[in-house]
């Protein structure tokens, strides 16, 4: 039997969807599941964590964990992994998770793999699949170690709503605070905004929107849809969008149920950040734009003509 420990993805006190996705996949693999929640106030999430599909909930709660810091976070995860005798530790995708996972791997003397999209267990043989080179290739990787620490790519697994675990809360002592690397100041870039990486719908804007007025129009469409609002790299470079809105290989990787690309041509780096989306709609003037190669439905047209009509139709749905 394989023991899989999932690291709960908690942002601003809220449990993110990736946790249930990872737990569903772990159970589908026939594994025993546990989850570890690390933070200043995570005890109250125990029932949600059980409902997400874990049979044991390790809770590491301490005021010092209010602000994320890699070393104590890694220490907390290692403690839970040892307690559970975990064969695998899975993180949902986040930049912080990606920074912690390799440290956990070294401490557990485990293999480490980031951005994985699948795992297979065949007796003792474990293999993972991960994309590389801006999604141009997939790598099949054999794990040559008794343990694996992995960061799962956004949208790789689906949550099974039928699955539920049982509540079995185990409180662990908090780790020592890190005195070597300290956060002096923390400024939220995204307060009150819809989290791009967790949204059901993402609307992204590209160079086709030309200027601030164009961006505002597409933002309105996103708001009407209650969607996360992202952009291509070009818009960030042009100063029209904030860096944390960039979807792509070097930005956010998203995989919503519905992705709407407006005025985005679809450079390979952008596609690498969104082509795991379930349904992709694209609006672009250029019929040759590469975004149409990944789109389920494409409209060749000027976004300034198309977006107002889209808004009208969406208004009808909202009514």
């Amino acid at each position, binding site marked *: 039997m394989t023991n899989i420990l999932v690291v709960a993805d908690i942002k601003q006190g809220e449990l993110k969807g990736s946790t249930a996705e990872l737990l569903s996949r772990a159970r589908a693999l026939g594994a025993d599941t546990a989850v570890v929640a690390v933070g200043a106030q995570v005890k109250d999430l125990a029932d949600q964590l059980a409902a997400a599909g874990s049979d044991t909930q390790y809770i590491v709660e301490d005021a010092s964990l209010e602000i994320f810091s890699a070393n104590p976070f890694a220490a907390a995860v290692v403690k839970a992994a040892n307690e559970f005798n975990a064969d695998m530790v899975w993180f949902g995708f986040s930049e912080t998770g990606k*920074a912690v996972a390799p440290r956990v791997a070294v401490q557990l003397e485990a293999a*480490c793999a980031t951005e994985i999209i699948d795992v297979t267990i065949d007796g003792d043989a474990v293999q993972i699949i991960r994309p590389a080179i801006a999604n141009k290739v997939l790598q099949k990787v054999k794990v040559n170690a008794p343990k694996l620490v992995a960061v799962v790519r956004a949208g790789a697994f689906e949550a099974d709503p039928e699955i539920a675990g049982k509540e079995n809360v185990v409180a662990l002592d908090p780790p020592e605070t890190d005195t070597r690397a300290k956060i002096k100041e923390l400024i939220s870039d995204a307060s009150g905004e819809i989290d791009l990486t967790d949204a059901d719908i993402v609307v992204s804007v590209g160079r086709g929107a030309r200027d601030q007025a164009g961006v505002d129009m597409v933002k309105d469409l996103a708001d009407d849809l209650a969607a996360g609002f992202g952009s291509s790299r070009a818009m960030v470079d042009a100063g029209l969008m904030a860096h944390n809105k960039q979807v792509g290989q070097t930005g956010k990787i998203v995989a919503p149920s519905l992705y709407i690309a407006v005025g985005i041509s679809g450079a390979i780096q952008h596609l690498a950040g969104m082509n795991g989306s379930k349904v992709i709609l694209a609006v672009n003037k250029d019929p040759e734009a590469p975004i149409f190669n990944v789109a389920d439905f494409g409209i060749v047209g000027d976004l300034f003509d198309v977006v107002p009509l889209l808004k009208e139709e969406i208004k*009808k749905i909202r009514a």
Partner: protein
Amino acid sequence: MLHIIVCIKQVPMVSELPWDPRTGTLKRETAQGMMDPAARRALEAALQIKADRTSGPVRITAVSMGPPMAEEVLYEARALGADRGVLLTDPCMAGADTCMTAVILGKFIKNHCPDAGLILCGSMSSDSETAQVGPQLAEDLDIPAIGYARRLELLDGCIRVERHVDDFLELMEMDLPGLVTIDHAGESDRYTPRYVALGGVEAAFNTGNIQVMNRRALGLDHAFNALKHSPTKIMDVYSPVTEKKGRVLTGAVKKMVDTLFDDYGKIISSAMGKDLKTHDHEEDK
């Protein structure tokens, strides 16, 4: 004297990746190599620290683990201003995964750069995209690390790091020795790499010698075998089938939008968490 170690990977030039159209695989052996873009930014960060007079004297060692051809990126690093280039290469290092790469780099730093104060890496290479070597190296050396940095400032005995992660702007301070990985370009793009004239690289090739170290020089155990000891091993690399045969419409905008909502109205409304009410085309009736 602050000794900065910059870890540099040679990667295939993605825009010129030669593909074998019959097998759909990458012909990596014929790919042209280049300095990993994120590592180039890490080197730029080191060069800017060195150029800043308030930092005091700074010495930069550029190090790469890789096949003999990886020497090229070290000549380039020398031409850009690194004081020393060291190539760690040995047949027994071939096939090293991120963990073994960190062990090899760690061995070099522990045995040959005991005075290292700051270690800089790119946050993620453009080919494998694992983002693992930096944090694993820090863990191996038992030093603190900060990932995804956008801006560095040297203070007395510590370094101030600005970074953007998961929708937060963080200002951190870290004791030295420590490791920082430099992120990809952001809006306040401080570490846009400088370019070196071709003549400069040529001059570096002529004068700047690169120190080559094998297993023995490095002090690795004689039984060291990266391929065997790597906890992960790539078995296969293949091209994913990603192209969809989607529907792409041209023509009258109103008609296209109507067709869109006929085909995808249900999906759109369910993603919005709404039931699709009857969708009428007035003009169709």
